[in-house]
């Protein structure tokens, strides 16, 4: 029985039930979706002991690879699916109380986004990656464009206030379709080119399965480089790598905080894993792409280092709190990409650790930022003076998330960056550039998060003007507290006891770096071969 595959079906079933369900009640989607993830998480935990012992290639339709499509369940993939399901549950819990008017279709699309991300993590087939990328893309464009205003998730008071009508008159008030359109055009362009690359690769080898492709005889150097570049383009875009990240600002500004959290935490994690799967498992130890893999690695390293600096630099200058977080995402994903491109055990362990740490911290930060924006009625952090004084717990969450991103000792980001830098130093050579970029980025992050934190805890400020923040408005609700508390505690726990996920990290890095024994071998043994 290949019953591991059921894990993908929980969110799909929820999505399928929503169109009919919304006829009964508009709340149907909002209430049903969290249940799907609770079920999914329980199922994940049930599978975990078995998968930790032995990875499994799960087939669809009883056709063995390379003839059919396979999903690969290993500690790495199942762990990441569990991670994104947890993040999805937290985000939905946050939405449960903090949004009044989201339609049923929004939750349908959210479920499809999570499904596609989980599918991207699990699948072992190139064309399947293309299909899942398209699902994730269409779901995210729609949800971004559905954002209610540029600030996203603003309170009712603010939308009536003078400041809002001023900004609504300037084009900024309704800019969400523009951000989504830019994202759509770029994403569509690159995914179409990816399809061309996949077809070229198929015409050279006759298979679409990643494991089979990697064990093929050698491709011509220039041909391999061309197809790999075409195939990697949309993944560069999704992981916000340097020349492909011009959509980030507009899209994240348009998105509501909970959606921004999902894009950064869930879709970003999936994109990074696909990048690792293609560049490490498919190109890594294989003969097929041997001629081009070195060039691609150098390209990745340089682009990663560039996006670290550009992302953190943009975040440094930004005044809109959500965009600060979005730009810092570019930098953090750059670090993950650098770790993947260096491809030694330490660097890959660091990259995976950073991926988890960044995902959790970003969701925490976006949810808290949404909370702040909602209370303060403004998207700009300079106008939030003294907000954290009135709400010390939320302020503490923000500081914990920011410190985890920076890599302050005793928080998860520290160990991640440490291992990453250790790996880069071991590799030597060009990786030195990456070390410099990471260190510089850490300083930049420190400065801008310090400024924001200082502003949040400053005396006076927002409470004095206009009375926007009434006494009864600062009460927390459980929908905000439970997810954020869980995320903050897990960041601290991973920082204090990094050994907790050591076993997982080791086996995950081992799988990515030793594809012959841990990935390709398993699938080839099950599949018949040509």
């Amino acid at each position, binding site marked *: 029985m290949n019953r591991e595959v059921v894990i993908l079906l929980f969110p799909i079933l929820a999505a399928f039930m929503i169109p009919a369900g919304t006829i009964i009640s508009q709340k149907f989607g909002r209430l049903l979706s969290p249940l799907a993830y609770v079920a999914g998480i329980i199922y994940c935990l049930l599978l975990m002991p078995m998968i930790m012992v032995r990875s499994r290639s799960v087939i669809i339709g009883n056709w063995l690879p390379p003839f059919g499509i396979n999903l690969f369940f290993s500690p790495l993939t199942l762990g990441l699916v569990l991670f994104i399901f947890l993040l999805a549950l937290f985000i939905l819990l946050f939405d449960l109380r903090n949004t009044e008017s989201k339609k049923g279709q929004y939750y349908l699309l959210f479920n499809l986004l999570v499904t596609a991300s989980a599918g991207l993590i699990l699948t072992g087939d190139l064309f399947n990656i293309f299909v899942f990328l398209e699902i994730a893309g269409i779901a995210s464009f729609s949800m971004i464009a559905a954002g209610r205003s540029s600030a996203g998730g603003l309170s009712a008071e603010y939308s009536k206030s003078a400041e809002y009508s001023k900004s609504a008159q300037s084009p900024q008030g309704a800019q969400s379709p523009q951000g989504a*359109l830019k994202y759509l055009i770029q994403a569509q*362009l690159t995914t179409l080119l990816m399809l061309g690359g996949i077809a070229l690769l198929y015409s050279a080898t006759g298979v679409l399965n990643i494991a089979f492709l990697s064990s093929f005889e050698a491709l011509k150097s220039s041909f391999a480089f061309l197809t790999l570049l075409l195939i990697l383009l949309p993944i560069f875009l999704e992981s916000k790598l340097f020349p492909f990240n011009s959509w980030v600002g507009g899209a994240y500004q348009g998105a509501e905080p909970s959606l921004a959290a999902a894009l950064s935490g869930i879709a970003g994690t999936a994109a990074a894993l696909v990048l690792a799967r293609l560049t490490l498992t498919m190109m890594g130890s294989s003969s097929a792409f041997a001629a081009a893999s070195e060039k691609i690695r150098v390209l990745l390293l340089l682009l990663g280092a560039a996006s670290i600096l550009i992302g953190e630099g943009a975040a440094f200058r930004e005044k809109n709190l959500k965009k600060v977080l979005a730009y810092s995402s570019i930098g953090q994903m750059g670090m993950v990409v650098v770790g993947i491109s260096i491809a030694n055990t330490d660097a890959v362990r660091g990259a995976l650790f950073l991926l988890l740490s960044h995902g959790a911290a970003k969701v925490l930060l976006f949810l808290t930022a949404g909370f702040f924006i909602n209370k303060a009625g403004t998207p700009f952090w300079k106008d939030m003076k003294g907000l954290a004084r009135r709400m010390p717990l939320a302020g503490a969450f923000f500081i914990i998330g920011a410190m985890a991103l920076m890599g302050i000792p005793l928080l998860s980001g520290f160990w991640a960056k440490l291992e990453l830098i250790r790996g880069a130093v071991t590799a030597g050579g060009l990786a030195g550039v990456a070390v410099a970029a990471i260190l510089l980025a850490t300083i930049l992050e420190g400065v801008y998060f310090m400024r924001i934190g200082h502003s949040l805890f400053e005396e006076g400020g927002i409470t004095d003007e206009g009375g926007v923040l009434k006494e009864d408005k600062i009460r927390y609700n459980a929908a905000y507290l439970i997810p954020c508390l869980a995320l903050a505690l897990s960041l601290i726990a991973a920082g204090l006891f990094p050994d907790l996920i050591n076993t997982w990290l080791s086996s995950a890095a081992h799988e990515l770096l030793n594809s012959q024994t841990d990935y390709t071998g398993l699938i080839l043994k099950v599949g018949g071969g040509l």
Partner: protein
Amino acid sequence: METMLFILSAFSLILTGLFGVLTRKNLVKILLSLNILETGINLLVVSLGYFKGGKAPILTNSVSAAQGINFVDPLPQALVLTSIVIGLSTTALALTLILKHFRSHQAVEFVKLEVNE
């Protein structure tokens, strides 16, 4: 030779579409260029499965006795079926976004938005 001609015409469409996406500023034109690019990619994918003298991949009495050698490759065709439907979905969504964009900015071009404040 025939395959090469098919591939060549596919590439010419792909490059035209790419040119359009890069240089047009009317959003509807950009979307049309993307559709041209998509048509080109679809042609490329199918032409990579074309073999000269190949038959349509449908088993009939006259061909099933032979060993199935002179068929064209059915797999790229299946992939293109998927790609066409995906193209329609994106086009529909993009047009909806363009309509929404026009409502808020009275323009079918990207407008330069004022930076914060």
